């Protein structure tokens, strides 16, 4: 079981590289969706005896992370008629390299954290941190609002993985918090996107800089 859990986590980390390394927006969203699927499946494999409640939660999280939101993003992509190109501030290769360095650093960092013995030999913490890092990288180095939403999605995936450590202690609260956060994020971004498109006829957040003082 543990090996399977680790395997799923490694797959999720791979999706980080995929999302940062592709120049196609659709591929980026697909990577985030797949990652959502993997991280949602993770609690099932992580917990020795999954309860019914956990199962329900996994199903809901997986649906939202892997299908609903990516579906919304696809739809947005279809409706706003923009080029399906990522347009990064930081090139694709440098960002992948940066992520590699970041992943290494988070692994090092996690190995020195004062964790519970039960969690220490698992990949949960480094994977969560590196996914967070990947999300931040997407958020900060990409021009288009849609790739930023994707970054936010990946960031939330990282938080979701991290929250599994706390799940035994305070079960539903963490989960619901994560999902709510996610939904709010998507809504905000959706509003921003609509607004940007209406006002500027484009989804390029670089043009938002006209709004500064």
């Amino acid at each position: 079981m543990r090996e399977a859990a680790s395997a799923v986590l490694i797959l999720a980390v791979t999706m980080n590289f995929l999302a940062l390394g592709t120049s196609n927006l659709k591929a980026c969203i697909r990577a985030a969706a797949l990652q959502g699927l993997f991280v949602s499946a993770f609690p099932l494999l992580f917990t020795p005896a999954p309860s019914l409640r956990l199962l329900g939660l996994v199903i809901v999280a997986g649906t939202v992370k892997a299908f609903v939101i990516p579906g919304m993003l696809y739809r947005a992509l279809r409706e706003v008629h923009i080029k399906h190109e990522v347009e990064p501030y930081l090139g694709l290769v440098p960002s992948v390299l940066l992520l590699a360095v970041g992943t290494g650093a988070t692994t090092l960092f996690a190995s020195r954290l004062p964790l519970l013995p039960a969690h220490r030999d698992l990949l949960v913490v480094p994977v969560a941190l590196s996914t967070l890092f990947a999300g931040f990288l997407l958020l900060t180095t990409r021009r288009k609002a849609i790739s930023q939403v994707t970054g936010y999605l990946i960031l939330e995936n990282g938080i979701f993985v991290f929250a599994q450590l706390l799940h035994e202690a305070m079960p539903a609260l963490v989960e619901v918090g994560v999902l709510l956060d996610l939904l709010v994020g998507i809504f905000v971004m959706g509003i921003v996107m609509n607004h940007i498109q209406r006002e500027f006829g484009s989804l390029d957040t670089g043009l938002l800089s006209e709004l500064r003082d």
Partner: protein
Amino acid sequence: MTPTTLELLAVASALVAFSGLPGLLLPAGSRAVQRVATWCHVLGCALGVSAAALALAGSPATARFAWPLPSGALTFALDRLSAFFLVPVFVVSGLGSVYGEGYWAEAHHPKNGRKLRCFYGLATAGLALVMVAGDAWSFLVGWEIVSLAAFFLVTTDQDDAAALRAGWIYLVSAHAGTLILFAMFALLRDATGAWLLAPSVALGSSPLLRPILLLALAGFGLKAGVIPLHIWIPDAHAAAPSHVSALLSGVVLKMGIYGLVRVLSMLPAYPTWLGLALVALGITSGVLGVILALAQHDLKRLLAYHSIENIGIILIGLGVGVLGMAQHRLDWAVLGFAGGLLHVWNHAAFKSLLFYSAGAVIHETGTREIDALGGLFRRMRFTGAAFLVGAVAICGLPPLNGFVSEWLISLASFRALTNASGGVAMLGAAAAAPALALIGALAVACFVKAFSAVFLGTPRGPHATRDVADASRSMRFSMGALALSCAVIGLWPNGAASVSRRAADALLGTNAGPAASADLRALGGMPLFLLALIAVAGVAGMALMRPTALTTTWDCGYGSGGPRIQYTASSFAQMLVRLFRWAVLPDEHRPRLKGPFPAAGQRFESHAPDPALDRALLPVFARGRSLLGLLHVIQAGRIQAYLLYIVVTLVVLLAWSWSW
């Protein structure tokens, strides 16, 4: 004694504070607005003056109210020192309100008259609150009320860019001062263990004493306008309506002096360095203030710089008093404090009188430029006479009130001089007399310039030739009352001096003794003697003067002298300004002449920008602004960049917590 004086004062302050409110419900520009406001205000001020008079005669009253803030309670205390400062507050404010009837009539200023009356009352009530504050909290509340209300008063004419700039500078410096006072009161609380503004023995041995006193000098000095902290004074006084300028100069500046005096009253013993610092600051402000005044072309800016000069004189008096206490010489201490405090009254009287008469001139001619005026005495007899009375008083000439207080300070200084073993303290106190003489002489030069250029000679321009009438009845009433008070204090100095002696006793607390009252009593004969001297000189002069007959004389080729041939304000002061150019730093634009006469369009111009504000502070701020402008790079306007800042901060915090 029951706190009836405090209750009376509370009613008075409430009346004054809300005097402008009924007007807000009435239509703008209607006569009822100013009637209601003025009557409420005058009634409140009359009650306030009587409360202050009762308190001056009686014993101190205090009142405490529970208050949910950390201080636990709000304390109000009305002792003789507070009462002494309350008198000018209510007198100047009440007379100013009457003056405002004619000067800022609702009919002519429907746009901002109601605002002016509202904040005028609020500022007066705030001043009263400051003067009766018994703890740091109520003091700061009153202080803030005055600071904010005065901002709206300075910017009464909200369409005038100069007024807005002056208000801005005032607001910045007022809040810098408040900030310093916050620090000062916090330290004071540490040193004394209470927020109360009461004498504290613990303060004398506290290591915090020096920082507290330095902060008090800075914070209160910023309000009082001690050079080099006077930056807000010239612009604000020039831009405000004249009765507001009188309130600012006569009373709001004194709020700084009051704060300083209140802190002094808390000390169990006075350090010598404090006295020396006060005298040094006083001499600097006094001399530089009058020199800068000499260089001004704007009538109200000139008067504003004279306020700085008079604050300097007050500080000299207080400094000599502190030095006397440090030397355990009660005689010069009492004389110094009594003189300095009496000058607070005197300056409030004659400076308000000067601002009122200057305001009348500005009201009629529409300009503050001295060089555009001239020859107004023939058409504004009353205003001219009032200005002359104020000018004589401010120069410290007998038989008016300025002489009395300056004479007391000089007496203190002479006492110090006859004390052989004073050391550096004696030298400091002895420096006061020659400094006062220098200030007085320069002030005479300045007011000869101001009076003659504005009122004598022939009109210099269209402003002075237009249809000019004397001040209206309400304005004349206020000017007359102040001129009368100048004369009364000058001719009956014993009365005023004994009142200021009481205030000085309250300041010194148990330290005061019966010493020096002989000097005060000797003062009584002085003005009569001087009056007699002046009368003799006058009679002798009349007798010696040959009878005049109208005839033509050789006129040096200037037979057809026009207005342009007169001395202007700048040419009259030129010699003295040249002499002190190291302090004034005047801006002179002199054309290069290619022949005996200047070509068309060539003109000579000189300006006197403020050395502290325009030469030091604003350039430094401009440089700082351009340097800080580099930080604008951070404000890129990109979501990505802002997110990056968050990440970087997180990583740095994480690394920091890791390294611990």
